[in-house]
């Protein structure tokens, strides 16, 4: 019994220490209760979608999209670098797949200031769990609007579908799942490539205490993506890159890109000669 008790204590300590990276700025009330549950956020997001158009039209058949995760602003050096890169010719846009801030109002303020004062191409934000800390949803919604939306990039001859999901609570929730199923059913056939962005990574490439969507939710999503020929699913959260191809779908988890992160990188997604090509580039 004594050994079991000791093991339990050590295990709890390991769990707490494993959260070390997020503890400094974490809102620990989220262990007990989370305001603004995902289904409520999705409701507001879908209302927002009715009054906004996020589509991009590019002049060439080939284009590039930059994708990064876990910027956790505060620091602005890496995010400014990515903003500058997104403003280059041939780059259609820049996507940040969640944990864009640490959730506190100061981080949101800093990010909005950088957006207002630096040159950048079209920027798309996805919501992550950190963005919800300290009632962060209010700030996210006020500044950026929807956390569940789709946009297309149209080249004239082709159109590619990009879907942004809100997994800030570790689940996409029933309302968002219905929306996603409906969207894929109606729209997938009209587009060449279909790429999904979501914050919480699906697979345990390495042993980690960092959370994943529940197994039965993964079952539903993997089946949905297989049936609808989703080409890529791009995720963050784990701060450690990994790539898996499962069936027809390429699953990519990104490195973090916050300032000071040793392996900070971003993903360069190129649509070139009708093919999807992706590769990591260091920051």
């Amino acid at each position, binding site marked *: 019994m004594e050994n079991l008790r000791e093991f339990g204590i050590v295990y709890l300590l390991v769990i707490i220490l494993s959260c070390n990276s997020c503890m400094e700025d974490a809102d620990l009330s989220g262990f007990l209760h989370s305001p603004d549950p995902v289904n409520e956020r999705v409701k507001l997001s879908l209302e927002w979608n009715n009054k906004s158009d996020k589509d991009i039209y590019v002049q060439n058949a080939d284009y590039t999209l930059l994708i990064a995760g876990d910027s956790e602003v505060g620091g602005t050096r890496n995010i400014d670098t990515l903003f500058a890169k997104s403003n280059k010719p041939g780059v259609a846009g820049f996507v940040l797949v969640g944990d864009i801030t640490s959730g506190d109002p100061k981080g949101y303020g800093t990010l909005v200031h950088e957006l207002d004062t630096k040159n950048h191409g079209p920027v798309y934000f996805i919501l992550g*769990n950190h963005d919800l800390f300290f009632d962060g949803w209010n700030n996210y919604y006020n500044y950026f609007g929807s956390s569940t939306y789709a946009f297309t990039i149209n080249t004239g001859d082709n159109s590619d579908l990009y879907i942004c999901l809100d997994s800030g609570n570790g689940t996409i929730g029933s309302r968002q799942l219905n929306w996603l199923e409906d969207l894929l059913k109606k729209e997938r056939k009209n587009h060449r490539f279909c790429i999904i962005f979501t914050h919480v990574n699906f697979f345990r490439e390495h042993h980690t205490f960092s959370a994943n969507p529940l197994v039965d939710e993964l079952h539903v999503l993997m089946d949905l993506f297989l049936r609808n020929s989703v080409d890529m699913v791009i995720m963050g959260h784990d701060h450690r890159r990994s790539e898996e191809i499962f069936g027809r779908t390429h699953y990519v988890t990104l490195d973090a890109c916050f300032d000071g992160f040793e392996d900070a990188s971003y993903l360069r997604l190129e649509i070139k000669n009708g093919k999807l090509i992706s590769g990591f580039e260091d920051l």
Partner: protein
Amino acid sequence: MNYAMKKLIIILFSLSLFCFNPSLNAQFRLDGYLDFGKTQVSEGFYSQISNIGSFEKQKWGIQAGYQFGLVQPQDVIFNSCFGSLYRKFRAGNVPIDLGVEYLWTAISPDLRETNWIIFAGTTLNHWQFGLGTSTRTYRLSNKAANQLSISESDKRITEKWNMMYHAIYVLKPYENKWNLSASFTNYDHFIVQQENNPMFNLRFNYKISSPLSLYSELWYRPAGLMVIRVTYYGMFIRLGILWKI
């Protein structure tokens, strides 16, 4: 039905026959239960029915079970099955079961999940503890892989090891006519969640007679605990009957 599936069903059937053999003079348990509940991804209420047979001699035991879906969104009927083998021994005064298990699940007509599990558990006066590890593989069915011309390397994803745990507090002595227990775990008979997705369960047990018990369980499943944004994910009720032969 592919060859591996047929083989598994034959093994489970053989285990069942073996368990029923009265000449073995050992304890046999049959557990049947019905689950009904709702999750964020179940598209309304779901219902599943499960049967588990256990055979136990003095120092070892085997267990096998299967689950059928009655009402559920996934387009399969035979959801899942498992077989396990365990050895019973004592570490000082503490009784320990140490075993291995194979769990097979049909995610959909085209997708499968398999788990290899090693587990250890102990039963004390009012507490039960278990600890284990599982390795999960998601894979395409052979039929789907052939139809879609998926290469061998892209047919499966195998995850790194996952910790399994349970802790159960039992209110009354086990021989009591009724009992209440509460548990905290990341697995159930036919699903192993990642270690960062725990589930909570309250159980009421009532012995109708010496071999026969009825029980009811209430399971609560949160999401997002380890992203520090915990939220409701699902809940289900289990109604079961346990027969000790």
